[in-house]
């Protein structure tokens, strides 16, 4: 297919070349004939018939020329030269430029009534044409052979590499997400494609692992309170004697159900926030005021718990945001800090503006989170070993991370030396 197209191209180039070259050569030949005819007419004008005949005789004696001449008398018969050219002398006005068959000619009428015809069979031009044609024919054959050869080589190579991709894709479809496309390291298009597809597979694999993890975690984290609930109800059924026993049991059951519903609600919220791309419900929010409200709400509970809540808040910072979600984000971070630091710790709310970028952070001087765990605590239900049996459901930071992402930022956990610093940088487009 490609070979045929290639050969047609070569053929067309050849044909056009022949046309252009022969046309140019013919024009040149014609000009030469006209010049020759004019030169002979000049001879006639200078020395009359005698000089002309002498000049023609000289031309006839030259073996190298293939120009033919005829001098036609008033009676229409050849006086001198090639009689076969007689038909070209019938138009005394000028030259008959004939293309294709026959020679090129130039004719002149002389003042004594005779006519002169100069003709060239263009043997040279035809010869050049033939040479060019032959050259292109040979080129065509070679090109065809080469085209077929390299084409088939190339397509086998391409097919082999496509096959590798297809095989991997089929394996993935069949369920083996560990398969990756092998690449040659040549950095060509196929390698780049393979690398991109592999990255996509990595991402899918990560999501699948995450999904499995979350499903398992949900099952586990809900099974515990549900079985506790069931056990309590069963015990009550068996042992409760008084109305008060029942009342206590029902109250406990309601509390336990509320905890389960809290988990569900948090999971749904996270899922919904993660699925939201539209910043619907975004309004201008005074972030400074929001920070003051949170700081204000938690100052008393913090001091009751033996901790200090400090605030370093730049005034009048406005962002485009969902106020409720943003409030919950910072409440979660503050609660997290208060929950996971020992007494006499200080938790600081910071809101700063630097180079037109807004950074909101909650820092503490507690034990912090080991670098290797920092990413994991953002996952749903993930809890550090030391806080596994404390209060909380392991969803607070996941929710905070989802809200941060909705606001175009990222929840970053870093070492506050000592302690933990949880910060969000707002994207510029949301800063007002």
């Amino acid at each position, binding site marked *: 297919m490609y070979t045929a197209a290639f050969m047609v191209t070569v053929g067309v180039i050849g044909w056009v070349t022949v046309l252009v070259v022969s046309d140019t050569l013919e024009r040149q030949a014609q000009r030469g004939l006209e010049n020759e005819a004019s030169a002979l007419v000049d001879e006639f004008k200078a020395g009359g018939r005698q000089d002309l005949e002498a000049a023609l005789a000289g031309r006839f004696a030259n073996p190298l020329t293939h120009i033919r001449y005829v001098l036609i008398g008033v009676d229409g018969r050849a006086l001198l030269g090639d009689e076969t050219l007689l038909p070209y002398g019938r138009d005394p006005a000028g030259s008959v430029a004939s293309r294709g068959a026959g020679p090129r000619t130039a004719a002149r009428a002389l003042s004594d009534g005779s006519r002169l015809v100069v003709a060239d069979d263009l043997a040279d031009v035809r010869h050049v044409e033939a040479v060019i044609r032959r050259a292109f024919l040979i080129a065509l054959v070679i090109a065809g052979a080469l085209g077929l050869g390299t084409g088939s080589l190339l397509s086998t190579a391409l097919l082999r590499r496509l096959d590798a991709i297809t095989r991997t894709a089929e394996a993935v479809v069949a369920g083996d997400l560990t398969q990756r496309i092998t690449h040659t390291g040549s950095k060509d298009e196929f390698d780049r494609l393979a690398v991109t597809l592999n990255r996509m597979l990595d991402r899918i694999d990560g999501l699948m692992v995450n999904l499995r993890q979350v499903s398992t975690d949900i099952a586990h984290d809900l099974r515990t309170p549900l079985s506790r609930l069931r056990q309590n109800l069963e015990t009550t059924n068996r042992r409760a004697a008084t109305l008060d026993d029942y009342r206590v049991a029902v*109250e406990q059951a309601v509390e336990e159900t509320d905890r389960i*519903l*809290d988990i*569900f*609600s948090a999971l*749904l*919220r996270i*899922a*919904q*926030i993660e699925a*939201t791309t539209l910043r*619907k*419900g975004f*309004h201008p929010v005074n972030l400074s005021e929001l920070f003051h*409200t949170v700081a*204000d*709400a*938690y100052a*008393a*509970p913090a001091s*009751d718990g033996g901790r200090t809540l400090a605030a370093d808040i730049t005034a009048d910072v406005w962002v485009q945001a*969902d*106020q*409720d*979600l943003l*409030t*919950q984000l910072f*409440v979660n971070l503050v*609660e997290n800090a*208060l*929950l996971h630091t020992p007494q006499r710790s200080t938790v600081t709310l910071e809101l700063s503006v630097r180079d037109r970028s807004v950074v909101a952070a909650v820092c503490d001087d507690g034990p912090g989170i080991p670098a290797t765990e920092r990413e994991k605590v953002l996952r749903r239900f993930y809890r550090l070993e030391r806080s596994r049996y404390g*209060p*909380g459901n392991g969803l*607070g930071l996941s929710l905070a991370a989802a809200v941060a992402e909705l606001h175009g930022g990222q929840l970053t956990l870093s070492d506050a030396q000592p302690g933990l610093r949880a910060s969000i940088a707002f994207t510029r487009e949301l800063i007002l």
Partner: protein
Amino acid sequence: MKILAVEDDALTLALLVSSLGEAGHEVEQAGDGHTGLTLACGRAHDVAVIDRMLPGIDGLELVRRLRAAGVQTPVLFLTTMGGISDRVDGLEAGGDDYLVKPFAFAELLARIHALARRPPLGRVETVLHAAGIELDLVTRRVSRSGQTVDLQPREFSLLEFLMRNAGQIVTRRQLLESVWGFHFDPKTNIVETHMSRLRAKLNSNGEPDPIGTIRGAGYLLHALMA
């Protein structure tokens, strides 16, 4: 109180009707948006409790049409959990309050009471009186039995909400929303902490506590305490 309940889940609706009836209210019920709209326009209710998702016309549209028709009945939206920006949509459509399912019945009752007690438009109070406490909204001064009580801004707002709803139970979530603007449930006992500080300040003269704690429901400012 005459209450209109619009809810498509038959079981939830039956529970609503019976519980509100037990609490001494007269309830009209509708299972879909069209019936709800007809009933709401037909007769004056003190409060309408309307589910967001309804067959026929949904809750938002129902309230939009009600407001367009000039019906000013206070509306409490009910919604299933998890929605973001739902609350804002509900309020923009003309709703007055918003409650996420599942909820404690005490919560619903407290909110219905709060809505029904809203002062009519145009009447502005600047000084609130209850339980021998005087709260001046303009000077932001509070006194009990003539003695000035120094309150932090949030303690002031807390007391203000209790006084506006004196004699009625207010829930923790109502307080979180009105005082702090928190439309979610924090893990920390913010309300309890501030309530105990407020109490300590109000009772520093050894007077009896005007604020009652109702277990599993919320708080109550005794209106008629001297």
